[in-house]
């Protein structure tokens, strides 16, 4: 067992109360898949790719809440239109899909990385496209939105995170997990564009372990949840996962242990996150995490750390721009259950074998700092 796996198991052991087992929603998820595929006249779990509703992950919320639906869009990575219209088309399609929902969702959460290089032109383009959506919109930033001007344009246009509000019996929290990079730019006398370029490079070295909630925001989170009953549901939105998936690509927050400790007293916490551009599902203690699609492009599963509870996405065709991307619809039912649906623009979403998911493809890699960063 690797050190990372050992640590992960230890954290789960510490955080899960005696006698608790992983949430039963996993088995319900399988039943949902089988049920849906039978309805479609398809045979067996291999045929659970549904269109357009493509996956179901059931989450148990506390009883007593009202049903509601909300939409998640993130990782649009818009360039100026003069350079790239492909990402504009895909973001537009997602926003039109959301707006076409009937009945409409209660709100849209935009989960970060609206622009690619934090350019005000990109962020304004995103704001223009988002005009398509008439329901309430809430925002959290991604690192691509932030490091050109350290969030100045983002905060002015979309408001500051963190924030919280209550909605139909659920306390909802939006976090900023991107603004806590150590200063690697001042001593190197980098321009703002150079800083942004390094932060926009997923496998770059200089940005380091930039993803974090941070001590101040953790204190805020404690306060924000202080008056909330421990048995009532909490929904946390973040750009990065709130557990350790793959630190070299910042598929984590570096203070995930502290975040988990803060959320530990609550019986029902669901984290919805972006950044990973791929379906993910994980549970640590009572914290469930769901990774959402990007509209821009999919990422391969990391060489290690893919949660075992994840149903892996099928390999996509890089020659088809609308493959492997999409948005998410989350539905809290009247009996206080929530379905998360991947709205991917293809028929099959999930792989049934590892060769078709690629989850085992990159474990050959010897991880080392980016060679061009060794200045």
């Amino acid at each position, binding site marked *: 067992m690797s050190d990372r796996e050992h640590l992960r198991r230890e954290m789960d052991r510490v955080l899960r109360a005696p006698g608790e087992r992983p949430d039963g929603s996993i088995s319900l998820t399988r039943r949902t898949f089988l049920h849906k595929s039978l309805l479609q006249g398809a045979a067996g779990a291999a045929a659970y790719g549904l269109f357009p509703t493509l996956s179901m992950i059931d989450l148990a919320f506390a009883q007593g809440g009202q049903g509601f639906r909300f939409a998640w869009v993130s990782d649009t990575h818009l360039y100026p239109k003069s*350079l790239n219209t492909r990402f504009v088309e895909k973001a537009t399609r997602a926003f039109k899909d959301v707006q076409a929902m009937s009945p409409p969702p209660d709100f849209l959460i935009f989960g970060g990385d609206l622009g690619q290089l934090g350019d005000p032109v990109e962020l304004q383009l995103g704001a223009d496209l988002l005009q398509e959506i008439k329901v309430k919109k809430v925002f959290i930033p991604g690192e691509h939105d932030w490091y050109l001007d350290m969030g100045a344009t983002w905060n002015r246009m979309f408001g500051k995170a963190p924030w919280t509000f209550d909605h139909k019996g659920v306390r909802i929290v939006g976090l900023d997990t991107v603004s806590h990079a150590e200063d690697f730019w001042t001593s190197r006398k980098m321009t703002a564009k150079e800083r942004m370029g390094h932060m926009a*490079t997923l*496998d770059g070295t200089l940005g380091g372990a930039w993803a974090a909630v941070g001590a101040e925001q953790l204190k805020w989170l404690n306060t924000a949840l202080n008056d909330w009953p421990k048995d009532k549901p909490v929904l946390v939105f973040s750009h990065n996962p709130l557990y350790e998936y793959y630190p070299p690509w910042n598929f984590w927050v570096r203070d995930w242990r502290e975040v988990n400790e803060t959320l530990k007293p609550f019986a029902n916490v669901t984290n919805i996150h972006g950044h990973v551009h791929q379906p993910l599902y994980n549970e640590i203690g009572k914290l469930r995490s769901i990774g959402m699609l990007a509209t821009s492009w999919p990422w391969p599963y990391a060489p290690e750390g893919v949660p075992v509870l994840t149903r892996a996405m099928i390999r996509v065709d890089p020659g088809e721009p609308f493959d492997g991307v999409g948005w998410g619809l989350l539905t809290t039912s009247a009996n206080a259950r929530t379905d998360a649906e991947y709205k991917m623009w293809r028929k099959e979403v999930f792989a049934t074998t590892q*060769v078709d998911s690629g989850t085992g493809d990159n474990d*050959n*890699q*010897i991880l080392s700092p*980016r*060679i061009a960063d060794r200045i």
Partner: protein
Amino acid sequence: MVSAKLHESLIAVALLALLLGFGAGPARAHKEAHTAEQLKAFEDVFMEQVKIGDLLFHGDPGTQKSLGVQLSKTGMACAMCHPYTSDTHPYQFPKFQEQMNAFATLRDMINWCIEKPNEGEKIDANSDAMKALEAYIYWSNRNSKLEPGVH
């Protein structure tokens, strides 16, 4: 059963090996032993190409300009879909490549990605840029075992 012709060939190879001194000393009897400095120089040549390939793979404009290539016209770079060259599978080539519906080399695949997702300009298969990209991709997958033809 070993044929008479092959048997004669094996004897000839064995005699040649004896003449060259195989078994009695270092296997590099046909040349001088490498010095540490030479080996370091060889590695430096390779790593310089790896670095150039890294820069190209990450879309560095200066490196593309200096080599006279345009790998993308969309702002996308190879590394955006292939962080640390993930999912490039260099150890599987040559193989049948679905997207091309053809038997392809790694260089063919690199050019396909340049032309299709990146909408860039195809590069000469034997160009410096191609060799550098290949060096970076292979270096990043240096722990792999060869699996040619595997999909």
